[in-house]
C-alpha cells in the first residue's frame, strides 16, 4: 500500500522524482567523493613533506605517472603488481564484512606460495602442465585457507584477537618458508638464493595475449566479481553482514556466527594464498624469500580505500600497484629511498581513516528534503 501511494505520488509529480533521484545520488556519492578527497589531501600532505626535504612534489607525481601509468610498458608493470594486491585486499575485505580486522594476509600469501612450490617438487619430472598447475593452485588455496581459517577458529572458539594472531602467524609463516627452503626442500643446483626447485619455463603460467601481464589479473577480477555476488546477493553474505553489523543480534537470530567467521576467514586466506600461487607460477617460477614483498600489507590499505567492496578493489589495486611500480624510478631519479612509497601509503591510510569522521557531517551530502 505504501509503495503504491509512493508510486502515485511520483507519477503525479514527475519533477519530484528526478530531484528525488538526484538527491539520492548526491547522498550516495559521499562514499566515492570522501575516499577520493582523502587521497587528494594525503597527496597534498605528502607534497609538504617533500617540500620540507627540498624535493619537488611536481617531479614526484610526474614520475609516479611516468613510472606507473604513462606508457604501455609501465602500465603493464603496474597491472602485474596489481594482481597480488587484488588477492590480498580480498583477504582483508571479506572478514571486514563480519567486523574482523585481519592484517596477516602476507602470511597466507607466503604460505600459499610455499605450498605451491613445495608440492611441485616431486611432480616436476613427470607431471604435464595440465596436472601440475591445478595441483599447485589447489595446494596454495588450501594452505592459505587453513592459515587464515585458523585465525577465525581462534577468534570464535577462544576469543583470541584476530588482528594480533594473524600478524603473529605471518612471522611464523616466514619461519616455515625459510626453514624448508634453506633446508630439506632447497634446490641444490641453485647456489645463489635458497629456493625450491624451479617448475620450468614450459610449466609457467603465460601472459594474457598481446601483453606482459599474467593471467592472475583476470582471475583476480573474476574472483572480485564472484565474491561481490557472494557478499551482496546471497544469504551467506547477508548473514555475514548482519554479523558484522551487530554480533549479538546475529546470535539472537540464531545465525551460525562461528561458522560464518571461520568460512569467511578461510575464503579470505584462500584468496591471499592464491596470490602466492601466481607469484610462484607466473613470476618467480619457484618459492623463495622473494614472496615476502609486502603485498599483504599494501593489500590492507587497498581494502580500506575500497571500503571493503570487492568491485572497487580492482581500480584501487591498480592505482596502488602503479605507485609501487614507480618506486624504482623515483629512487633513481630523485635520490629518495625506496621507503618513500611506504611513507606515502602510511599517510594515505591515516588520512583515509580520519575522513571517516566527516561522514554525514558535510552539508552537501545531506538530504535536502529533510528525509534521511
Amino acid at each position, binding site marked *: 500500500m505504501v509503495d503504491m501511494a509512493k508510486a502515485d505520488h511520483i507519477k503525479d509529480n514527475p519533477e519530484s522524482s528526478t530531484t528525488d533521484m538526484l538527491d539520492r545520488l548526491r547522498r550516495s556519492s559521499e562514499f566515492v567523493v570522501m575516499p577520493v578527497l582523502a587521497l587528494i589531501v594525503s597527496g597534498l600532505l605528502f607534497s609538504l613533506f617533500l617540500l620540507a626535504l627540498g624535493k619537488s612534489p611536481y617531479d614526484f607525481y610526474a614520475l609516479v605517472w611516468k613510472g606507473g601509468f604513462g606508457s604501455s610498458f609501465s602500465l603493464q608493470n603496474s597491472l602485474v603488481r596489481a594482481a597480488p594486491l587484488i588477492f590480498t585486499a580480498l583477504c582483508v575485505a571479506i572478514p571486514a564484512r563480519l567486523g574482523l580486522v585481519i592484517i596477516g594476509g602476507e602470511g597466507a600469501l607466503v604460505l600459499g606460495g610455499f605450498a605451491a612450490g613445495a608440492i611441485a617438487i616431486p611432480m616436476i619430472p613427470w607431471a604435464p602442465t595440465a596436472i601440475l598447475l591445478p595441483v599447485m593452485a589447489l595446494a596454495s588455496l588450501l594452505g592459505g585457507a587453513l592459515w587464515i581459517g585458523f585465525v577465525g577458529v581462534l577468534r570464535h572458539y577462544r576469543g583470541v*584477537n584476530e*588482528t594480533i594472531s594473524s600478524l603473529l602467524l*605471518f612471522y611464523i609463516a616466514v619461519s616455515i618458508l625459510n626453514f624448508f627452503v634453506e633446508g630439506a626442500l632447497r634446490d641444490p643446483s641453485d647456489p645463489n638464493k635458497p629456493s625450491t626447485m624451479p617448475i620450468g619455463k614450459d610449466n609457467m603460467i603465460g601472459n594474457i595475449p598481446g601483453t606482459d601481464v599474467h593471467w592472475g589479473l583476470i582471475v583476480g577480477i573474476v574472483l572480485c566479481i564472484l565474491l561481490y555476488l557472494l557478499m551482496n546477493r546471497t544469504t551467506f553474505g547477508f548473514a555475514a553482514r548482519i554479523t558484522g553489523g551487530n554480533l549479538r543480534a546475529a546470535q539472537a537470530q540464531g545465525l551460525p556466527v562461528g561458522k560464518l567467521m571461520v568460512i569467511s576467514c578461510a575464503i579470505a586466506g584462500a584468496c591471499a594464498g592464491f596470490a602466492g600461487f601466481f607469484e610462484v607460477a607466473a613470476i618467480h617460477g619457484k618459492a623463495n624469500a622473494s614472496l615476502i614483498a609486502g603485498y599483504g600489507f599494501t593489500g590492507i590499505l587497498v581494502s580500506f580505500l575500497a571500503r571493503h567492496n570487492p568491485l572497487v578493489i580492482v581500480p584501487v589495486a591498480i592505482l596502488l600497484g602503479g605507485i609501487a611500480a614507480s618506486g624504482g624510478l623515483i629512487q633513481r631519479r630523485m635520490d629518495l*629511498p625506496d621507503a618513500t612509497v*611506504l611513507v606515502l601509503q*602510511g599517510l594515505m591510510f591515516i588520512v583515509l581513516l580520519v575522513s*571517516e569522521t566527516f561522514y554525514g557531517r558535510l552539508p552537501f551530502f545531506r538530504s535536502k528534503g529533510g528525509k534521511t
Partner: protein
Amino acid sequence: MSDEAGLFTVLMAMFAGAIRVSTPFLFVSLGETLTEKSGRINLGLEGTLVFGAMSGYATSYHTGSPWLGVMVAGLCGACFGALHGYLCKLPKVNDIAIGIAMMLFGTGLAFFFGKSYIQPQAPRLPSISLGAWSDNPALRQALEINPLFILGFILAVVLWWGLKNTRWGLIVRTTGDSAPAALALGINVNQVRLLATMAGGFFAGIGGSFLSLYYPGSWTEGLSSGQGLMAVALVIFARWNPLACFAAALLFGAAGALGPALQSIGISRGYHFFNAAPYILTLLIMIASSSPKRSLKGAPGELSITK
C-alpha cells in the same frame, strides 16, 4: 661436550637472553598497559618502536651521546602517541585501524630516514657489570646489565604502585573502566587518554632505542620484526598488571634467546623454528589466556579489543 655442560650453556644463554632481550618488550608492554588502562588500544607501537630505534641511533651517531639518543627516541615516540591519541578522539575513528595505519606509517618513516644510518657505527649504551663476584665467564657475561633494564624494572614497580595508590592512577583506571563514570566525576576523558597514549609512545620509543643502541646494537630494517606487536599481546597475558608485564617480558626474552643459544652449542638444525619460538609462544599464550565467554579479569571495561 657432555650433555650436562650443553644444557648448562643453553640455560645460561637463555638466562642471559632473558635479561638482554626482554628490555624492549618490557618498555613497550608497560607503555601499552598504561594506554590500555585508560581504555584505548594502540596497535601502532610496533611502528613507534622501529622509529624510536632509528631516531635514537641517528641521534647517538650525530651527537656522540647514546643517552641523548634514548631521550630523542622517547620524544619521537611521544609524538606518535600524541598523533594516535588525537586522531582517536575524533568521532567514528577506530583506534585499532588507526593503530595499523600508524604501524605502517611509523615503519615507513623509519625506513625512509634510516637509509643512511644502516652502515655507520653509532656510540652504544654502556652496561653495568654485576657479575664480578663470579668466576664463571658465562654468568659474568649474563650479568652485564644495561641501565635501561633496571630503569624498566623500577618503572614497572612505580606503575604498579601508582595505578593502585595514587589519584592519577585512579583517574586513569576510571577512564578505562567507564567513560560515563569518569565524565560524571568531571574528568576530561579524551585528555586522559591522549596523555596515556603519549606516555605509552614515550616508553615504546625508549624500548626502540634499546634495540639499536644496546642489543642487537645497530640499526637495520629487520630490527624489530614484530616485537612491538608481541608486546601488545603480552599485555593481555599479563592481565594489565605492570609487575606481571615484567615477568612476561623475561619469559619472552628467554624464548627469543632459545634459537641463538641452541646454535651456540652446535644445534643449528631447525634454527628458523627456534627463531619463531617467541611468535609461537605468544600465540599459545593468547590461546590459553583468552576466553570467548567471560571478559578477562583486570581488563579495562572500555577496551575495544576485549569487548
